[in-house]
């Protein structure tokens, strides 16, 4: 009994001792995470009295938490959907959308694979399971291991819209929960193909040309690379202030440099 009282007491103290530190809570898309995390480090160095907490969760969590004002900024790798606006009609009035960076969904394979280029139709056939061997694409005699992101992710939504269109992703595809899981898996799987945000491409992966064009700063900005998307931050009218200041920082020259350092493409 005494212990119970003591613990309750400690609990109360902890609850009440929250100091006056200012906080920005951010959550959402894992694709946007590296940008926000790097920006937050710098921002906090400039403003030692502010603490920024960054959580992943996915685009849906980001958008919904921002609408419901649970967090200050929601990250998303896709636009808010009409069904999301419907569900939260009364709250979503003052939702503010900011584009913070561009991303190219990059198609990656194992470095030992000799294939260099695919077009959208071939990509669709691979992901819908119609092409099963690299031989059919002029590559080595390997079974294709299709790697995709989980269907609820923002990356999948964009990939689905541009590549799969009406087709469904083959049930044999490995569905992985995040960009880095896809990248890591492909780096040691000779027959694998997958897609990640351009920030996740590293030297253990081989980048493919799509419709004859590599994703690059130029091709993305000029909208020549087909698998391009925008990255968003959502805030609500009420959470403006500090959150807006942080977003302004990301949109500033230094912020956009960070975007590039993390491998994404600046929006400004």
């Amino acid at each position, binding site marked *: *009994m005494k*212990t*119970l009282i003591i*613990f309750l007491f*400690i*609990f109360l103290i*902890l*609850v*009440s*001792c*929250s*100091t006056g*530190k200012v*906080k920005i*809570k951010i*959550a959402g898309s*894992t694709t946007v*995470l*590296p940008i926000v*995390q*790097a920006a*937050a*480090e710098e921002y*906090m160095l400039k403003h030692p009295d502010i*603490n*920024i*907490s*960054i*959580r*992943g969760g996915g685009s849906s969590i980001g958008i919904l938490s921002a609408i419901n004002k*649970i967090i200050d900024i929601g990250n998303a790798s896709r636009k808010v959907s009409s069904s999301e606006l419907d569900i939260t009609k009364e709250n979503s009035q003052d939702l503010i959308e900011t584009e913070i960076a561009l991303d190219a969904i990059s198609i990656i394979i194992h470095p030992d694979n000799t294939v260099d280029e695919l077009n959208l139709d071939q990509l669709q056939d691979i992901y819908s399971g119609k092409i099963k061997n690299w031989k059919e694409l002029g590559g080595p005699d390997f079974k294709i291991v299709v790697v995709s992101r989980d269907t609820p992710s923002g990356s999948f939504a964009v990939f689905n819209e541009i590549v799969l269109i009406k087709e469904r992703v083959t049930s044999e595809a490995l569905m992985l*929960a*995040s*960009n*880095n*899981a896809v*990248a*890591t898996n492909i*780096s040691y799987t000779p027959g694998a193909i997958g897609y990640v*945000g351009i*920030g*996740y491409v*590293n030297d*253990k992966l081989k980048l493919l040309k799509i419709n004859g064009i590599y994703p690059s700063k130029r091709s993305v900005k000029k909208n020549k690379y087909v698998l391009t998307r925008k990255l968003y931050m959502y805030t609500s009218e009420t959470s403006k202030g500090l959150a807006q200041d942080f977003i302004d920082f990301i949109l500033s020259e230094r912020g956009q440099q960070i975007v590039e*350092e*993390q*491998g994404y493409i600046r929006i400004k």
Partner: protein
Amino acid sequence: MNIRKIKAFIGVNVLRLFIAITFIFLLVFLYVIFAKGGKMISWEFLTQSPRRFMTEGGIYPAIVGTFWLTILSIGFALPLGVLTAIFLTSYAKPAWLVRIVRVAINTLAGVPSIIYGLFGLTVFVQLFKFDVSILSGTLTLGVLAMPMIINASEEAIKSVPRDFREASLALGATERQTILRVILPTALPNILTGTIISIGRVAGETAPILFTAATFYTRLRPTSVFDEVMVLPDHIYALMTEGSHAAKQMPIAYGTAVVLLALVLFVSGVAIIIRYKIRKKRKW
């Protein structure tokens, strides 16, 4: 050598082989983790926040987060667990209530950790509006730890000889006095070692805190129970899945795994040794 002896010889050696396979696998496992992560461990790694897009610096906030989550959840589960164990061992009436409580405990012990996560999400995060916070994580992990603590406490209390209890009652002590002054103090060391072992479990759980307490990055120590925190197991998962600099983050993930593993094994190891010593010393 007749056929029976050969059979016996083979049989015993197959058993030896089975236990050897288990241990060899675990040695390889531990070797891989410690070999890849051991070199990361330094004073800086343990005491600093992540820096340079989580490719440098340490895991201090995650250590602090795990500390608070574990301590608070045990603090929540221990009193409830011990009191329930007292009910089961000393009062245990009416029989139907005991049976229901036992079914509840066994079921709670078997519920998958991901379902604890969903429970925490719907009840603490959404219904009670604690949001993703230490408080939500603490309560979720506390409920998860309860069956372990109840079982440990019950065994500890049962191991107190009946004579102790009867002697105390015969001297005119009441039931409550007997429990609080005789039985609990005698059982306490065993209750505590059981609790410490469950601390190890709670510290390593990932699925229940995924939606209730864990955050990818924060620089500071939590200032209230409504803060979200970095946590060691989630940090490993997050680095492996959400980090964008795999080459530099993989060693950090392994380093974090070494810290978590060392923490869990050390804490439970100490508890097991203490329990062993207590059993040896015991004179009844």
